[in-house]
């Protein structure tokens, strides 16, 4: 053991040692509290980390242990440890809870991102990565550029994403039309005041056409079970199972009116209006005919189905949202007013914040008045993106790789 150069057993022992150390830390000081390394602690740590790498790189001709960090065998073993630990994470449900130091002294299998024994091998791999990148950077050779892009890219992305994590602010803001809102809450329900205010002009939602389907009365599953068939309200007729279905009337905005022992729908355009259709279903085999109104219901009115037989009913499914967006006015502290529309996949950038369309009043569906935004500030994002774009460039280099890196 410990003869130079190190073999697999030495490196495996280092990995096991790190996990053991991590376990001891886990049970003695408790799970990792990432919020402790927020600014400026993370900047200090980054500087120390870089200084450590440079020092080790400078001393590597004297100290074998430092030299060994950039050996390919270390890479194989450290990535294997990281992969194995990530595999455990992939097999066990994670609860993603935030943790304060000194709170959790358990092994932390359900919250591995906060577990020392998970993080230490990651740090080991990152150190190896940094040392390897340094070795290939100095002396500089053009043919090493793809190697440098891949390795530095991952190093920068990993380091900055980890150290910058505590500086990320994620807030949720609920807005109502015509009211400027400058307060938002974090995950713990704490209220924060922002340097900007958002006034919702209008929330609007576009929906896919309503769909008519046959479900079994017992389990409510769409039929035929293996390959459910649907009829949209844009089509006038169609066949599902043995039933020929004809759409006689369709109101996009309607309200029910109670008749003697049945329900009829009339056009009605106010908040809470539901979709309703008058349908006739004829059984192709038995020629039995059923007629009646079906509706998907809204927050105001219940849904309505048409019973075809003891086994099946004709129903209208709730309409799915196609697009939802919020027209907003944003007031900033430096007295600018920005008018824009925020929608899913199209966040708004303002004063270092990204404003995302997160949600609306789901139970009200298309009649939602409120719009819910997610606001994210991530000061380390540019540096993570530098890493990501270096890796992308490195991947492009892999396409055109020549067999010269042996």
């Amino acid at each position: 053991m410990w003869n130079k150069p190190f073999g697999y057993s030495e490196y495996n022992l280092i990995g096991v040692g790190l996990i053991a150390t991590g376990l001891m830390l886990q049970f003695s000081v408790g799970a990792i509290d990432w919020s402790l390394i927020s600014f400026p602690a993370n900047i200090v740590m980054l500087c120390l980390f870089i200084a450590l790498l440079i020092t080790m790189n400078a001393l590597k001709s004297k100290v074998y242990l430092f030299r060994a960090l950039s050996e390919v065998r270390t890479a194989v073993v450290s990535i294997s440890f990281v992969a194995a630990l990530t595999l455990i994470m992939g097999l066990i449900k994670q609860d993603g809870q935030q943790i304060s130091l000194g709170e959790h002294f358990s092994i932390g299998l359900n919250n591995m991102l906060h577990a020392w024994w998970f993080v230490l091998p990651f740090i080991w791999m990152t150190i190896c990565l940094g040392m390897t990148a340094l070795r290939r950077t100095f002396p500089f050779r053009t043919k090493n550029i793809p190697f440098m892009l891949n390795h530095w890219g991952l190093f920068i992305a990993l380091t900055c994403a980890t150290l910058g994590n505590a500086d990320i602010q994620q807030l949720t803001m609920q807005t109502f039309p015509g009211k400027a809102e400058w307060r938002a809450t974090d995950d713990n329900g704490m209220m924060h005041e922002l340097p900007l205010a958002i006034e919702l002009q209008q929330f609007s939602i576009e929906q896919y056409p309503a769909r008519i389907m046959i479900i079994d009365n017992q389990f409510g599953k769409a039929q035929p079970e293996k390959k459910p068939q649907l009829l949209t309200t844009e089509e006038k007729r169609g066949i599902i199972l043995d039933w020929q279905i004809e759409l006689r009337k369709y109101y996009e905005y309607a309200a029910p009116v109670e008749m003697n022992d049945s329900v009829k729908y009339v056009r009605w355009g106010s908040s809470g209006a539901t979709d309703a259709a008058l349908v006739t279903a004829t059984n192709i085999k038995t020629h039995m005919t059923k007629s009646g109104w079906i509706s998907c219901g809204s927050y105001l009115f219940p849904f309505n189905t048409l019973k075809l037989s003891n086994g099946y009913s004709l129903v209208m499914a709730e309409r799915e949202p196609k697009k939802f967006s919020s027209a907003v006015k944003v007031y900033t502290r430096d007295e600018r007013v920005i008018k824009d529309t925020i929608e899913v996949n199209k966040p708004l950038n303002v004063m270092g914040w990204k404003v995302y369309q997160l949600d609306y009043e789901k139970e009200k569906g298309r009649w939602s008045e409120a719009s819910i935004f997610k606001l994210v500030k991530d000061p380390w994002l540019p540096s993570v993106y530098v890493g990501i774009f270096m890796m992308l460039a490195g991947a492009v280099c892999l396409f055109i790789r020549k067999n010269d890196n042996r």
Partner: protein
Amino acid sequence: MWNYFIIFTIVAAVLWIIGAAASYKNSKNWIIYGATTLGLLVFLTYIILMWIELGRPPMRTMGETRLWYSLFLPLAGMITYMRKKYRWIMGFGTILAIVFICINIFKPEIHSKSIMPALQSPWFAPHVIVYMFAYALLGVAALTAIYVLWKKKNDISGCDDLVYLGLAFLTVGMLFGALWAKEAWGTYWAWDPKETWAAISWFSYLIYIHYRQMPSSSAKTSAVLLIVAFVFLQVCWWGINYLPAAQNMSMHTYNMN
């Protein structure tokens, strides 16, 4: 459009079989590449027609992603054949593509036209296409690895190019996913189960690449590594839908709702 699926696929499959048989018999190049390319074009035409009909990229459901896989397998097989001249590789690619086509015929998992707002993004198409191409290349690499183990060969260097190319696509797919995630829900990496498994499979291929750099690396271990990595990739692609640890957790299990 699904009703015409069988017609397009039979034509494409026959052309691919002709190409694969020609490569196995070392026939003329124009037959090999001509037939396979024609088959690819027929299949691609189907995908494009379906794209037009749906009004959105056909990439949302498992059935739809399998379409791309069926397209890329023979393509990856042909590219490998061009470079390495394995006689059997195009046959294997074709058989696998046909298996996926059959799954689509017998268990289509097709859904309505609707696509949730989070998926309506210019990142959607490149993210999925790049991933599917990576899966196809790494699938061919895994097949080669099985062949190496089966025949007890001592040389697996033929896989290296495939893995480098596959890993490049895998990396691009993953990073596109990260950039898209930032635009869609504000975090580039959230350790969502799909992302965790993407990381596991990505690390596995990194292990292979680094292991292959060692002079003492053995073909057998390398082959096993490739097969295991490919299994992880399968978990990432569809296995995750059945994984207890990922139930109700992943933002990626769109096709299940």
